[in-house]
């Protein structure tokens, strides 16, 4: 049963395969282009360039808006570059933008997000990698049943489980705290991460595992001394996947935390969509860029690993 689910998501399997094998972008297979300035080439590059401009436009507009003063924005061309560059909106967004009565800027949300993301990423990957390892190498009766439920559970809309989790968190005294949200991220990261690690560990040569067993190594020794050092790429993929996913989360943040502990996305939305006060579009755009900066940096730095990560995580939606 589990294998049907796995087979059904080839990209996840591809993402979980060791580095050498997942040549998703190994080489083009389309027909060969002829002359450099053929009509065909002009059409291809022209179309791609126009689409690329469309994709870049919002980022460009955000950047130029965040560098303008309000008087210049009121003059009104969002596409024109700033006549006079000012970093004041960025400073204001970071340290003194208001949500309700609180005027300490996005920095609070940023640090909350850091305090949520770091333990969530660490814990969810620790739990899921050990679990995936157990599922791949130390199968026990019934394990596949729970794993199947876990993978199917990834398709259940979060809204269905929101309130039961509120009750669970309240019972264990974590409702409204950062650690409650960390737990929620561990829970909802588990299906995809466990799948990722299980497939990866299952793809490693079995002889390694057997040899270690013969030498008398146990569950944890094999995990720490053999599996862990061999699977750094998949850990990097998992970290990219989790950092961007958790940093970008809004729903869990708004449901399971209080205003003091709101993550950055929630605070950003509250700042920009505040009903009262004069709208400062430059500050809003600076705040939006600040929130998007962490995943963007990860994206531009990690390149192809990011593609593998999202191909694996896409099922999360």
């Amino acid at each position, binding site marked *: 049963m589990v294998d049907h689910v796995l087979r059904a998501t080839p990209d996840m399997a591809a993402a979980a395969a060791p580095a050498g094998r997942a040549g998703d972008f190994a080489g083009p297979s389309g027909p060969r282009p002829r002359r450099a300035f053929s009509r065909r080439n002009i059409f291809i590059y022209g179309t791609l360039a126009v689409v690329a401009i469309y994709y870049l436009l919002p980022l460009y507009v955000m950047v130029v808006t965040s560098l303008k003063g309000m008087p210049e924005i009121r003059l009104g061309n969002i596409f024109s570059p700033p006549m006079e560059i000012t970093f004041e909106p960025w400073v204001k967004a970071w340290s003194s933008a208001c949500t309700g009565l609180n005027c300490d800027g996005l920095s609070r949300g940023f640090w909350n997000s850091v305090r949520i993301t770091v333990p969530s990423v660490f814990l969810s990957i620790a739990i899921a990698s050990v679990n995936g390892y157990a599922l791949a190498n130390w199968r026990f009766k019934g394990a596949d049943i729970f794993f199947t439920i876990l993978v199917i559970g990834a398709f259940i809309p979060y809204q269905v489980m929101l309130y039961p989790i509120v009750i669970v968190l309240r019972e264990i005294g974590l409702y409204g705290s950062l650690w409650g949200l960390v737990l929620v991220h561990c829970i909802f990261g588990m299906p995809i991460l466990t799948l990722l690690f299980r497939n990866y560990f299952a793809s490693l040569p079995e002889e390694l595992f057997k040899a270690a067993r013969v030498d008398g190594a146990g569950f944890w020794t094999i995990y720490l001394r053999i599996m862990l050092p061999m699977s750094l790429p998949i850990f990097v993929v998992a970290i990219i996947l989790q950092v961007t996913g958790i940093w*970008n989360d809004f729903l869990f943040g708004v449901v399971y935390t209080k205003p003091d502990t709101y993550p950055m996305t929630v605070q950003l939305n509250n700042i920009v969509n505040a009903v009262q006060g004069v709208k400062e*579009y430059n500050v809003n755009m600076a705040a939006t860029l600040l929130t998007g900066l962490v*995943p*963007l940096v990860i994206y531009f730095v990690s390149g192809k690993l990011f593609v593998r990560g999202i191909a694996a995580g896409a099922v999360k939606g």
Partner: protein
Amino acid sequence: MTPVEAGRQSRLFRNLSAKIASIPMILTALVIFVGGTAWTVFYSFTNSKLLPRATFVGLEQYERLWATPRWLMAVENLAIYGVFSLVFSLVIGFLLAALMDQKIRFENTFRTIFLYPFALSFIVTGLAWQWILNPSFGIQQVVRNLGWQSFTFDPLYDADIVIYGILIAGLWQGTGLIMCLMLAGLRGIDGEIWKAARVDGIPTWKTYVFIIIPMMRPVLVTTLVIIASGIVKVYDLVVAQTSGGPGIASEVPAKYVYNYMFLAQNLGQGFAASTMMLLSVIIVVVPWAYLEFGSKRRHG
């Protein structure tokens, strides 16, 4: 201790570390996924208001749900958003992937550009597009400044077309991923196929439509499931871009659930609405799982 009991006990403790390592998974699967879902479905048949109460009212919550204009609006919006986002992301994603597959230069640059919005959260996406579509400063004003004074393009302030304004942002964020999946699918197809089609003199577009696309079925199915499960969850984008407005014109089911559960303190409605969301996912996922089952069984 009898030998039988001892045997049972040792079986339980065999492979103990693996069982301990699986405890989080077992708890999540049973308590959250099975237990939580069953709990919500169960309480959707009660008249819970501020707190969950086990007073059964049958299907009353569902009757009320389907008589609420806000919910009907949410379903209609989701249907429009769903159909258009499915069609457009598949078509645009495939066309971009096909263009990218023509042995072009700067492929990595183009891919980086098409995919970067996917790294951004829906909140950031929504706020960026809220600004671009702002009627007094955004595209509308820019075109008017060029001299076309009657130009109107304010989807976020027009109840009739607001969902298309959200669609623009959603497509901007998500098509890059679809393009990547399709490109991986295209690259997975044997180059010999192209050569054979060429030898037979089949035009390129015909090769795509009648040979390549049918061969990409597994990738297409996966993509379809990914898009569909993403559509049902649409929430943050609407919250950031319009907060559901103007009025209730851009309401979506996920937002309806949140509002009734955590703001309107009408839990029963929230549970009923989330159960309907679950039902819609089941309708999409079960046939897909069944198809995959079937094909697996046929291959033995």
